[in-house]
């Protein structure tokens, strides 16, 4: 099996233009043969390694590449 890091990063980059943050479901779907709680371990390891970053509204948590997806750039305020 390919390195989970490559799978996740490649997926996120492929969506880069439309989305910068992802639900856990979007990422765990990349590992269809795995139980959800096993996929969780892999994805959390990627966070611990600094490959991914949490983003939270307080009620919902999402995942993205570190520093990506500033609202300002989406609204042309860079």
């Amino acid at each position, binding site marked *: 099996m390919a390195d989970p890091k490559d799978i996740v990063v490649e997926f996120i980059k492929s969506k880069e233009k439309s989305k910068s943050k992802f*639900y*856990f*479901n979007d990422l*765990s779907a990349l590992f269809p043969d795995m*139980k*959800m*709680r096993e*996929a*969780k371990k892999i*994805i*959390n390891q990627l*966070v*611990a390694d600094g490959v991914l970053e*949490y*983003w*939270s*509204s*307080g*009620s*919902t*948590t999402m995942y993205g590449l570190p520093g990506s997806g500033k609202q300002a750039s989406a609204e042309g305020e860079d």
Partner: protein
Amino acid sequence: MAKHATPLLDQLESGPWPSFVADIKEEAERRRKNEKNVEYQIPSDVCDDLLGILELSYKDGTTHWKHGGIVGVFGYGGGVIGRYCDQPQMFPGVAHFHTIRVAQPAGMYYTSDFLRQLCDIWDMRGSGLTNMHGATGDIVLLGTTTPQLEEIFFELTHNMNNDLGGSGSNLRTPASCLGESRCEWACYDAQELCYQLTMEYQDELHRPAFPYKFKFKFDGCPNGCVASIARSDMSFIGTWKDDIRIDQEAVAAYIGGELKPNGGAHSGKDWGAFDIQKEVIDLCPTECMWIEDGKLKINNRECTRCMHCLNVMPRALRIGNDRGLSILVGAKAPILDGAQMGSLLVPFIKVEEPYDEIKEIIEAIWEWWMEEGKNRERLGELIKRQGLAKAISAIGATPVPQHVMEPRHNPYIFWKEEDVPGGWQREIAEYRKHHQR
């Protein structure tokens, strides 16, 4: 002298009720004087600027907070809720105003030393404003800056042996009632189960991977002092299987007036003599009580554990001896369908260390919800969408009458092949013995 004029907020203080505005002003004043010489690590005028930005929001009719972003300390995906102000030049004290959730002790027992330490940390490294306690039950520390987060976390964990609570799409800080520590109605050790499951599910608490939030609450008995049935995705409510224990002498003492009903709780007014028929028997929701030959009788098979009779006559009626808990799922899902109460999933389960049976049910439910739940869909909403039967089969149980709330309104029954004797195939010769072609 206040930093900002706040006429709209001042008006809020005019009512007869306690005002959060008065509280914030008091703290602002205290920070200005700083009589204890605290080395404030965030702007000392944080409370003044909080009042200022609130006043501006009231004036503009819109919020000036930007919500979301950073979510915690290293290794944690929750516990901190990022909040930033969109007028940082006007209100520098609240440019950052992050909330920190801290796990409360089971049953909310504190030592004064613990509270003092907590307040000292928060005076120095935060705004000094707290919310004791948040709706989930945790300690909420309101307002600090990003550089203080790791410092606060270090002090909480190393000096106070405490931890951050939950926020975001994870298991939220579990909450329990006082349980066996003070209450004779507790049917299991709610604090112990709360603690053990908190320790077991640290990963779920701190590293978010659920479709949305998930709350556990533990009520020692059906009185439900933490209201788990109304506000937790999975509630654990103590119950018993055998009979209510009756002390007939004490029943007679209540009837005779020697013992005060409700532990004397309603003694502030003269309600007249205690009338067991009117105040207990006639109020039994399942009408399963009566007096026979001067003795109180209960048809325990009909009892739904409403607790009313036990509450009124605690010396005469006690919980049964064969105790455990019921698990209910799916309360509090206000987005889709309005608030809802939990549905019974497991009528009775023993509470025995190491709680493996309970953990199996929890994990089976999570597995199902993580697989089938949509993003931002609470467990209760998934149950509404797919049906309680799916939740029951997710834990490998078979439906029992207690799972049925009302006669079915859907006339279609879809059998599974394995549920039908002989499956979809039949013995045609046998059938033809009784039915012609």
